[in-house]
């Protein structure tokens, strides 16, 4: 029998560990990654020629980051590695890829999609001003470019990244004006039993809050954002918010880093025709998969944050598990004890992740009370009022139909940053449950191709 053709999309924690397990089994997988260097987002590497240490870049996760990078370097002679390459479609048992020099369709017997996550955004009046960035984006500026996104920065939203990035900025010498968490402090107390599934990670999280307080950064809970003030030329100039006690306050800043935890990048799973289901805890539609990462489509496996938001440690275990599942399904030998050990670990990661979702809940009520003037879609400048009018006048209550009438989700980001909030705005306006609004269907290409590639591919 010819050697099975296995393709891995993504070279972050999940993709790296999946490749490692396949190489150990004697295969030579193709690893396609958009990044210039392996590592994914959370273990993103700085460019060649930068000199900061692992401890400085990754803090408590320095050892894991180094280990992951070294593991990938060791794999290089044994894999077909395609960096800076976009997988833009999956169809007919082929992966369609393109980069600056070339493009092709690669056939596969097994495909492991490790597509990672992006920030989950709740719009705020004024979030279209220059100087607003996603929390992940703010972290990339620091980690990969040694830059702060502004002179005085407000960190706003909720989720573990809120505290992590704010603490990293404070430690690097940036001026953190405030950390404004929309989650009430009580949510964290209720979530504590689940978060004890990973005591060391919980401890690291508490450490970040303590470090911020020690640095003199105001950290507020139960905050409601009111408006990011700014103008067309200068961008962000300040932030208005309401405290848990109901006071309205204003703070001067020239940058806002915002986000509410993460959302899975599920477009490739969608194009591969994987079945999706609604997850009521995160209020998102997610691809269905079993505990080992098998999707509903034979030969297509899902791992890491691209499937479920469970963090980098879970992504490493999930990538390895998905590779073992693929090997077993291809009729190759798999170590049962290794598989059982990984499944045990995944149960703890899943419990911890559920705790995080409860500690930092998605503030869907903010979508309902979002002022009509607030942009929902930054790409095409479509306001909440525009979207509500479409819902009222056309009766569109389904995400793709509302997109067709309003253009929300049709712009440059293809709904990545507006889709989940838009669904909440539609649900609130139509007075229907958000799951009935559905999800934006993925379209190929999943990201804009260069014009020449688009024409050649047509």
């Amino acid at each position: 029998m010819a050697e099975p053709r296995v393709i891995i999309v993504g070279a972050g924690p999940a993709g790296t560990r999946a490749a490692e397990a396949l190489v150990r089994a004697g295969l030579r997988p193709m690893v396609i990654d958009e990044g210039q260097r392996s590592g994914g987002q959370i273990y993103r590497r700085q460019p060649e020629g930068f000199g900061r240490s692992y401890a400085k870049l990754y803090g408590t996760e320095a050892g894991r980051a180094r280990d992951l990078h070294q593991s990938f370097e060791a794999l290089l002679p044994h894999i077909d590695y395609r960096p800076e390459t976009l997988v833009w479609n999956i169809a007919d048992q082929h992966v369609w890829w393109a980069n600056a020099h070339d493009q092709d369709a690669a056939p596969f017997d097994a495909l492991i999609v490790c597509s990672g996550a992006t920030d989950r955004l709740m719009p705020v009046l004024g979030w279209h001003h220059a100087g607003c960035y996603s929390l992940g984006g703010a972290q990339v500026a620091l980690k990969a470019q040694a830059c702060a996104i502004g002179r005085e920065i407000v960190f706003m939203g909720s989720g573990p990244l809120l505290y992590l990035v704010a603490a990293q900025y404070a430690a690097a010498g940036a001026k953190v004006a405030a950390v404004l968490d929309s989650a009430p402090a009580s949510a964290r107390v209720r979530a504590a039993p689940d978060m004890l599934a990973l005591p060391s990670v919980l401890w690291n999280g508490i450490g970040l809050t303590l470090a911020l307080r020690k640095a003199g950064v105001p950290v507020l809970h139960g905050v409601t954002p009111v408006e990011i003030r700014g103008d067309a030329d200068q961008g962000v100039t300040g932030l208005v918010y309401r405290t848990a006690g109901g006071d309205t306050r204003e703070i001067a800043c020239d940058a806002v880093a915002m986000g509410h935890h993460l959302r899975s990048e599920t477009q490739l799973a969608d194009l591969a025709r994987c079945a999706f289901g609604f997850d009521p805890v995160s209020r998102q539609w997610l691809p269905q998969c079993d505990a080992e990462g098998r999707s509903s489509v034979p030969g297509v496996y899902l791992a890491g944050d691209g499937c479920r938001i469970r963090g980098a440690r879970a992504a490493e275990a999930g990538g390895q598990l998905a590779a073992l599942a693929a090997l077993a399904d291809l009729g190759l030998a798999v170590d049962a004890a290794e598989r059982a050990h990984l499944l045990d670990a995944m149960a703890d990661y899943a419990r911890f992740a559920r705790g995080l979702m409860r500690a930092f809940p998605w503030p869907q009520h903010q979508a309902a009370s979002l002022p009509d003037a607030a942009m929902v879609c930054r790409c095409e400048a479509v306001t909440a009022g525009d979207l509500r009018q479409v819902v009222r006048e056309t009766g569109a209550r389904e995400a793709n139909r509302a997109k067709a009438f309003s253009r929300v989700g049709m712009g440059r980001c293809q709904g990545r940053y507006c889709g989940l909030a838009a669904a909440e705005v539609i649900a609130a306006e139509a007075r229907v449950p958000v799951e009935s609004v559905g999800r934006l269907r993925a379209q190929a290409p999943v990201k804009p191709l260069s014009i020449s590639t688009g024409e050649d591919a047509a």
Partner: protein
Amino acid sequence: MTGRFIRLDEHSRPALTLHVDGEPVSALEGDTLMTAMLQAGRALRTSEFDDGSRAGFCLMGACQDCWVWTESGERLRACSTPARAGLRIVTHNPEASWPNLA
């Protein structure tokens, strides 16, 4: 007013010069185009929907907010394109055509 991005570390890299809308911009090797442009200025482009200046958002190639163009019309994603000496960038689409969103 000074640039939007503030360098906190990694200052001792070799310098390079590129041009943005005809003006020279001094940057460092290893900078992305976005870093090079925003440590010198406040924005990358103007929204085509008349709602002000834009300066990127996600920095990881997902939002496409940071498109700029070369003088010859090639579209570049500023967050993931390295700054190179001699690059000549314009912040308005020189062909003024609708972007290819496919």
